């Protein structure tokens, strides 16, 4: 795999369209999934995906093989998505959420939700909390890492996460109500 990647990257650096397409095919679907989570809608996700691939090919010579290509590509797309939304990011007031985790309300509804519905929920989150939720819950970043990447305080990161949790719980409750009617 390592040699294959090395060869593929070398061909991309030689500006071979076939090699670039091979890279695109390999990552497009997965990265589009990432973009969809970070963006509010499909059109924006397409835009970010496109920017991400341009950035990927422009910076390919910087890949030093000290990690996996998949991890490096994922970081590029997350950074692209964050940068794309950075100007629009608004971090609302800290939401105190002490006992929310105890509230398991909506778990039944949750088990019945499809990935598409979950994606819609994420996309409906406010910009700031959506980014923090994605980074913390799905990408496994720590609050201090999120704070450093987004240029916010750890407290803001935590509050955004809490806000995301609260919003999602509310959405789940609403979904459950609709289904019970």
């Amino acid at each position, binding site marked *: 795999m390592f040699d294959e990647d090395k060869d593929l990257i070398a061909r991309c650096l030689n*500006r071979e*369209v076939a090699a*670039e*397409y091979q890279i*695109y095919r390999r990552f*497009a*679907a*997965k990265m*589009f*999934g990432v973009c*969809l*989570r970070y963006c509010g809608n499909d059109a924006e996700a*397409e835009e970010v*995906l*496109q920017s991400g*691939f*341009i950035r990927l*090919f422009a910076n390919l010579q910087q890949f030093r093989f000290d990690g996996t290509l998949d991890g490096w590509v994922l970081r590029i797309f997350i950074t692209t998505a964050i940068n794309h939304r950075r100007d629009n990011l608004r971090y609302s007031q800290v939401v105190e959420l002490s006992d929310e*985790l105890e509230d*398991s309300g*909506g*778990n039944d509804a*949750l*088990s019945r*939700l499809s*990935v598409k519905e*979950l*994606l819609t929920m*994420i996309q409906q989150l406010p910009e700031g909390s959506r980014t923090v*939720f994605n980074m*913390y*819950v*799905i990408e496994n970043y720590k*609050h201090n890492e999120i704070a450093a990447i987004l240029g916010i305080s750890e407290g803001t990161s*935590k509050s955004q*996460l809490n806000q995301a*949790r609260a919003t*999602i*719980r509310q959405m*789940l409750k609403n979904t459950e109500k609709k289904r019970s009617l």
Partner: protein
Amino acid sequence: MEQKDPIEDKFKSAFSGFEQEPPERVWNNVRAQLHPVPVPLSFWGRMMKFSGLLHLHPALFFTISGTAFVSLLTVVYVFAFGHQSIRGHAYAGLSRMSSGNVELFVVADKAMPWDSVTHYRSALIDHFGHFQFARVSQGRYLLRIAPEENSETAKTYAPCWYKGHERSDSADVVLVERKDVVVDVKLMKNGETVKR
């Protein structure tokens, strides 16, 4: 230490391998940005690009190129349209000459009388009696025609000036202006009286 709740676990597991195929247009756009197809430039676009290659300001470039173009047109006009030809046939009696020479002299109006006629060019008369001086500048000229030495024609006819004059000071002037000039020249018989 942050706790993970069931909701987060659900999201994490749902999106851990989440993939969605993007529309084909994304690749088309990426490819178009990576390998842009050069758009054919218009004439003025090419000129602007060329001026950039020469590190010239477009205004300076167009001034220089405009001046050069006008100069070129002037040169072309002078060389192509400022010149005419003198051509015609040479006759010995009623028949055309089959060989001989024609000499062209330019008449300098403002020179002193004794050096006002200077030799300009020579041409051969072909087998059909035809001669031609191409690309002659506008002005006043004299023509002198002579049969080939030791030829049969030379025995009967003597060299003469247009139109049948023995001397240049009495010869008719060929005026070259904006059109080609066609002149027929006839040799004088030996001992023939000078034409008046």
